């Protein structure tokens, strides 16, 4: 969104969005040093930092926007019905995994009571359609695609299980932070401004859906219009500051789930300077030409 608005406002984007189809490829590209910034799974960023990779989380991309889907014909109506079922998750180092871990715990089960399969999110709709798995969980719009195409049913929206759910975070190499802090601030400011712009009205959400679907996601605009409006708070963009309590909750669950080797301090994997400067940000002053 930030790139699209910048491109329209000043004729060029300041950043080069690079699309990937799987988390492992994205992680490897980031580690290679040719991708200074990346939207990455929050626990994956923490784990990389714990392994000594010089990255810091500087901002959020959105909140909520994840759903646990089952086949519409299935007899799964709550977490307890997932016992013995196959669930596709985007990655072991994802909050989607942690939400399953937490949900199972809340219902007196463990991850040993289900079969978890790591699967690239773009493959999940087909896997659910073919009933190769019983449930899938990932970020939108892929979950809504199963609903819109008539074979998926929402079991839970992430926010029902984990209010103010965080999926992806913006992580930046420390080298880029040290050498070009002004670029990082510009990117963070742009995300904050475009987030506020998105929340300024349904008309903006629909314009964004059309532009992002065609220019960045290569998906049907109808799908993104559905995701950004049914319901309007399915994905939210107005509370993107790095909140210590949110990350401590993630780190605590990640530790219990065994995906972190030990406790890690919030200050170790975040740099809040850029996020703090977005207090009082106003939306982009831009309207799409009619």
């Amino acid at each position, binding site marked *: 969104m930030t790139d699209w608005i910048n491109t329209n406002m000043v004729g060029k984007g300041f950043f080069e969005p*690079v*699309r990937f189809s799987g988390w492992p490829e994205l992680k490897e590209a980031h580690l290679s040093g040719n991708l200074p910034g990346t*939207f990455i799974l929050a626990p994956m960023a923490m784990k990389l930092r714990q392994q000594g990779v010089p990255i810091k989380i500087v901002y959020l991309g959105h909140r909520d926007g994840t759903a646990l889907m089952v086949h519409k014909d299935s007899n799964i109506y709550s977490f307890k019905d997932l016992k013995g079922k196959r669930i596709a998750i985007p990655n072991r180092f994802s909050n989607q995994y942690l939400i399953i871990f937490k949900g199972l715990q809340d219902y007196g089960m463990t991850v040993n009571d289900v079969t978890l399969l790591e699967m690239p*999110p773009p493959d999940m709709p087909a896997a659910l359609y073919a009933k190769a798995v019983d449930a899938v969980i990932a970020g939108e719009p892929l979950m809504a695609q199963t609903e819109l195409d008539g074979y998926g049913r929402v079991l839970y929206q992430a926010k029902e299980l984990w209010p103010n759910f965080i999926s992806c975070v913006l992580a930046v190499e420390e080298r880029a932070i040290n050498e070009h802090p002004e*670029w990082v601030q510009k990117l963070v400011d742009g995300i904050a401004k475009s987030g506020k712009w998105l929340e300024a009205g349904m008309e903006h959400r629909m314009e964004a859906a059309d532009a992002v679907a065609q220019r960045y996601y290569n998906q049907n605009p109808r799908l993104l219009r559905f995701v950004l409006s049914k319901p309007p708070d399915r994905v939210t963009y107005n509370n993107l500051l790095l909140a210590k309590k949110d990350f401590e909750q993630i780190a605590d669950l990640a530790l219990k789930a065994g995906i972190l080797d030990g406790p890690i301090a919030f200050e170790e994997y975040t740099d809040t300077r850029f996020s703090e400067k977005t207090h009082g940000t106003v939306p982009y002053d831009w309207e799409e030409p009619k």
Partner: protein
Amino acid sequence: MSKRLKIVLIVLGVFAGLGLLHLWQNVGFENLGFGSKQAADESKFRVGFLPVT
């Protein structure tokens, strides 16, 4: 110039061309210090993403 020398030069030229193409595609000349500092500074900040929210 003998025919043999011509063939050797052509082969060397093809290899040199392929090498440069490979270097440009995989490393980028600005990263080798061939480009000006201004050009490097103006290169865009790359941000990776998956087409999910």
